[in-house]
């Protein structure tokens, strides 16, 4: 992949990518580890800037680690509200009619077919 995550992209998209990396990890990440986890051409200083901006917004917590900080996603009130919203939406089985969802329920036989397609794609 080319450096799709380059620094010309809108700040919001970079923040989203960093936040996603923090959520995907199971332990707090230092800026260096975030940079690795993003697998992109982002400079370390850019990652550090984004992380401290997210921290100021209250989106992350951080713990001291060595000379710097390691960051983890914050479990705050907005997160809880979002979860409530999600549960609400989950009850409505028809919601894909307004909300385009990423993947639909698989049909019988799809799983096998998907695995075969993935193998073909890897070769």
């Amino acid at each position, binding site marked *: 992949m080319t450096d799709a995550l380059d620094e010309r992209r809108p700040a919001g*998209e970079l923040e989203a990518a960093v936040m996603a990396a923090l959520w995907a990890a199971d332990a707090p990440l230092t800026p260096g580890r975030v940079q690795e986890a993003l697998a992109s051409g982002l400079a370390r200083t850019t990652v550090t800037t984004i992380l401290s901006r997210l921290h100021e917004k209250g989106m992350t917590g951080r713990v001291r680690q060595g000379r710097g900080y390691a960051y983890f996603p914050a*479990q705050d009130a907005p997160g809880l509200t979002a979860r409530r919203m999600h549960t609400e939406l989950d009850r409505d089985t028809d919601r894909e009619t307004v909300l*385009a969802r990423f993947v639909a*329920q698989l049909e019988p*036989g799809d799983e096998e077919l998907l695995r075969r397609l993935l193998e*073909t794609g890897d070769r």
Partner: protein
Amino acid sequence: MTVSLLTLLLVPLLLPFAAPPLARRALDRLAPAPALWTLTSCALALAASCTIALGSLVLTGLLELPPFAALGELVHPLRTPPNLLLLPAAALATGALTFSACTLGRNALRQLGAFRDSRTQANGHPAAGDLCVVESPHPDAYALPGRPHRIIVTTAMLRSLDATEREALFAHERAHNNAGHHYFLALAELTAHCHPALRAVRTDIRFAAERAADEAAATAVGDRGITARAIARAALAGSAAPSTRPAFAPGATTGPVPRRVAALLVPGRSRPRAAVAVALAVGALLSTGVTTTAVLGVHHQVEVAQGDVRH
């Protein structure tokens, strides 16, 4: 209304039955974004013609009843097909229109309610760009349109993808939001309530929207393979976790997910061919044209019956 006018009004009621096979073919032969536009506008034209035709039948039937004839200031009896033919047709049309209006109204109210709830709750939160993460063991992701647009992703989904696949996922959801796909989905929903045959077309419209977002994501991350892998992995992760959702009825054909993955992975598919788009457009034009003719005919006869125009 004469028997020939009644026959004309049947055309917009029957034409939608030709739409599903054509729509299916359009998905194979057109690029996703043009397919989305073609299918949605065609479904809209067919649905509108069908509704207007039913409305004309109801109106003509009503004018047969003396109180309504008086209300319509008819001085002569309306020229109609024998009542044996017209009245059952008008009654059926009334039933169909009432049924559509009721199911549509109920569905619209429920969806608007759920949508408003989700918007008010997603608003006003600090967010990392447009991303809203939800802690959940079920991999799930969707676009939530509005101002500003949001993308909702569960932690389970984030954990089942690697960094580049996550970028593909975000690009996919942003494509939905930026292209306003929710308008297409809402119109598809509307048309599906107007004619039973358009329900199948609704499924194709949804699929075209997903494919369009897939292609946009592939362009954004610059790699079709990564996009395909993200979709496949997300789907497999979702099917591995026990779902709280009722499973859809199993279909005889392959489901939408493998078709999307295959479309991204297998290059050199047949070149886009516009013949099917032309066929759909002809159908839509035929339907609207015939309906307009019939409505003008009915209108003329009402004017004759009102004594405004001599036959």
